[in-house]
């Protein structure tokens, strides 16, 4: 019985193969590699988003504080990282830093920068932290004056206000924009494939290169990214329904 279903599945594949100008069989035979690629993509995207967010919260607070030293420094950082392409940032970290002998001879090289994975994680984290900082900065600035005044009147200290009033309300306002940042970061993570990592696009390019194909690797990668984005938008819809209910 099992043998029969297998052969009819194979027949089905052969049929799809014959009507589409694509090598479906090659995609299916190498699908385990694509699954591995999804793992690398999600790992890099999720980790950089988490670390980037944790870095962005204090930076956004400092940037909104009008602090004479911190605010301009953070403005410079976000300006540089939002003003240059992620690909360039990743190349500078991956190929650029290795040109300095003192970096190459230090422990940082051996344990971190010699690995493509770490280079990608650093570049992605710095990039998303810059965008998230500006996004939260905007949300903090939009805090209704009345909320802050009420907090002061009820005796909240500066950090007490930030922690209990300003940040929770800013986070809520930032959810829709942040869901875009998450999707942009996922799409940006394809840069990993240019520095030898086997993420989803990296596996697609491997398949194209190995069998001299034109589209198969890219189409499979596109469908996988599409599926991941579908999942992300679903999650954010749930989050919005929960935390932005008072607006609906």
């Amino acid at each position, binding site marked *: 019985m099992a043998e029969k279903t297998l052969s009819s599945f194979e027949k089905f594949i052969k049929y799809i193969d014959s009507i589409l100008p694509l090598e479906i069989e090659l995609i299916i035979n190498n699908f385990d590699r694509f699954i591995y690629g999804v793992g690398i993509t999600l790992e890099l995207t999720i980790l950089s988003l988490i670390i980037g967010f944790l870095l962005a919260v204090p930076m956004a607070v400092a940037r909104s504080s009008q602090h004479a030293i911190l605010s301009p420094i953070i403005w410079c950082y976000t300006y540089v990282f939002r003003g240059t392409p992620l690909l360039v940032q990743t190349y500078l970290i991956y*190929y650029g830093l*290795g040109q300095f002998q003192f970096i*190459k001879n230090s422990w940082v090289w051996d344990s971190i920068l*010699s*690995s*493509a994975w770490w280079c990608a994680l650093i570049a992605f984290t710095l990039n998303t932290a810059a965008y998230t900082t500006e996004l939260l900065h905007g949300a903090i600035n939009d805090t209704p004056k009345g909320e802050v005044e009420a907090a002061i009147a009820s005796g909240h200290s500066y950090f007490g206000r930030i922690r209990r009033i300003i940040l929770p309300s800013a986070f809520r306002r930032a959810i829709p924009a942040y869901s875009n940042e998450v999707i942009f970061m996922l799409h940006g993570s394809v840069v990993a494939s*240019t520095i*030898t990592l086997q993420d989803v696009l*990296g596996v697609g*390019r*491997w398949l*194209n*290169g*190995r*069998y*001299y194909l*034109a*589209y198969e690797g890219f189409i499979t990668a596109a469908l996988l990214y599409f599926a991941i984005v579908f999942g992300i938008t679903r999650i954010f819809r749930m989050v919005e329904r929960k935390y932005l209910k008072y607006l609906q």
Partner: protein
Amino acid sequence: MNLFLKTVTAGLLVLTMTTTVQAEDTLRIGVEGAYKPFSWKEADGTLKGFDVEIASALCAELKRKCELVEQGWDGMIPALLANKFDAIIASMSITEERKKRIDFSAKYYQTPARVVAANSSAIDGTAKGLAGKRLGVQRGTTHQCYAEKAFPDAELVLYATQEEVFQDLLLGRINAQISDSLVANDSFLKTDDGAKYSFKGSDHLDLECYGEGVGIAVRKEDTDLRDKLSAAILAIRENGNYAKINNTYFTVDIYGK
């Protein structure tokens, strides 16, 4: 609506006319430009190299005007199939796998592949010696095919260009690389950076992956162009133009047997 239709038809007519004229007049040739000494880009943007000069010698032989189109290696075959150019002269080996999609002229050179690693490295170019080691190859090349077949236990690291492979070998991110021996010698081992590296093991030949030499790729339907190019290769072999180009780059005749 009528006017709109007329404009569209007129536009289409002009389009078809220009494409046919273009296809007849100039031969568009795809080259890579990141594969020294076969093709590279000078600081001023001009393309140089053995492939580039062979291309112009063949065009002179065919008495046709040629236009060089730069194309990254990854997209070389798709671009040929999408009619971005009519022939590829970019050190592309004639293999069975590629012949499923495109056609080739007769070979215009044939050189062996070799493994390169640091002088001090114990890598000997065998499957056993490379087991567990990080081996760099350019993606979509015959070397990717060969490395997966011959060194199944090595960890393959894929790059878009051969230049990036050498760069990461220098930075120590990969333990060894496999590529065309002439390319490795000329653009890496002979440079100051490459002094600490050398060939490991002997020549690698493999009919399935490396095929029968390097040819000019054309679309399958362009059999006429294919045959003319094959004849032109033999012609420049005979009239000495090939030898002239060969000798400006190499000390041995790379045509092979």
